[in-house]
């Protein structure tokens, strides 16, 4: 199959070259005809259009397919979100139990800034190290507070994540 194609292509090219060989000396419509210009242009623009038209069709369908695909998950998500809301409320309660002093809030904010420079999942030693070189005071006890308040939570893979919502609420 590829062999046949190759032969075809070869033939077509020889054919083209025959035309082209004199192209340099021709001008105007003659030159366009000689170089097969009209055909090439029409083929060319057709392909550009078919490419982008088919892409636009696929994308417009993709949107619907994904919507369908996501629908069940939305339903599930509906229940989940209720649950997680409850959890959130519980967390909210826990957080309220720890009233932060003004300077503690400051520290939390500084940690938040540091956390933004890290990957989503970061190691505790890394965060501590950063805190130390950034001159945050009492990094260990502060980190402890963060863990208690669940601002920093384990991802259960040995790494930790920063919970933006919780930290925002805490420093409000």
């Amino acid at each position: 199959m590829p062999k046949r194609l190759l032969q075809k292509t070869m033939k077509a090219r020889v054919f083209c070259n025959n035309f082209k060989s004199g192209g340099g000396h021709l001008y105007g419509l003659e030159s366009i005809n000689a170089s097969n210009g009209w055909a090439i242009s029409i083929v060319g623009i057709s392909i550009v259009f078919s490419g982008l038209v088919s892409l636009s069709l696929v994308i417009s369908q993709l949107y619907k397919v994904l919507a369908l695909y996501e629908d069940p998950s939305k339903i599930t998500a509906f229940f989940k979100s209720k649950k997680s809301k409850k959890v959130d409320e519980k967390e909210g309660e826990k957080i309220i139990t720890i009233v932060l002093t003004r300077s503690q809030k400051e520290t939390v904010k500084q940690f938040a800034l540091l956390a933004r420079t890290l990957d989503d999942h970061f190691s505790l030693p890394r965060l501590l190290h950063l805190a130390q070189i950034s001159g945050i005071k009492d990094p260990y006890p502060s980190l402890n507070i963060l863990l208690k308040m669940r601002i920093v939570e384990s991802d259960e893979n040995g790494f930790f994540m920063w919970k933006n919502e919780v930290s925002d609420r805490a420093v409000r």
Partner: protein
Amino acid sequence: MDALFLDFYHNTGFYLWDYRYIIMIIVGMVFIYLGIAKDYEPLLLVPIGFGMLIGNIPIFKGLGLGIYENNSVLHYLYFGVTQGIYPPLIFLGIGAMTDFSTLLARPVLMLLGAAAQMGVFLTFLGALALGFEGNEAAAIGIIGGADGPTAIFLTAKLAPHLIGPIAVAAYSYMALVPVIQPPIMKLLTTRKERLIRMEEPRDVTKREKIIFPIVAFVLCCFLAPAALPLLGMLCFGNLLKEAVVTERLAVTARTSLIDIATILLGVTVGASTQGDVFLTTASVKIFVLGALSFGVATACGLLFAKIMNLFLKTKINPLIGAAGVSAVPDSARVVHMVGQREDPTNFLLMHAMAPNVSGVIGSAIAAGVLWSLMAH
């Protein structure tokens, strides 16, 4: 010692100069001026302009100084241009900084990016008519794609002897988009059309954004395999960006990597414009055809938008058709500006980005098609 002084003097630019070098040095300075003082695409015009200075210092041959001498440093750096390596790397970076959301929100606007490519093929015909060979004509036509790296890539593959003039023409006209497009836009649209407000685009999910580069790449390259080097890198870069987990690679692609490729491409393309090989009637024809190409592409985009309005329920502002030429993001900015002149509260920028980025895909496909039809 006198002989040595004389000998050295005969090797200086003061002895070797030629009016064509001086002309090109002045052109280089004009490029630098336009880039810095007028802020026309400075990231391209300044490197190319300084490259013109470098390429037009009158030098003696044999030492390995000039860009066309083997073993010269410039020759090594130029290798990435002649072999078409820099353009895909630049496309990787462009992919890693492009947001296709507006396109995904309203895929029909993609047609405008296709329509503007008509300029490419009309210029191709024009170049044939002016006596260029088929491969040269194809390379000249792609100037209308308004995409520097694409133009350089195709020219490197089809007509390497024209890289200098075609690259310079492509980048000059891209820089002059704010000058070339507005009059055409006003000529071809009524005030009422220019006042049309676009519908707010729907929100696009992350999942769509991640799937888009994959689908776009596979589909377009199945259709036009020769678009692979450019589209492949564009879509790869975009996937790195949208995947989030690969953010660090996307950051490098859209900062150091694209910057290094841009610096080296710009300065060597500029340096390839040595006066004695650059200032020819062919170059003049290329510049004329290039300007034509830009104008025709703009017009095609606009008119196609007007045709689409005959079929669409919610009309689109035909101005955004002009952004289909690509020249990202200048062209979209010009659309926005022209729109705001009629109605300062009409925010067209975001909408113009859709045809704008699809113009990049469109001209990459056009380049692929022309490459495969024209290669020996």
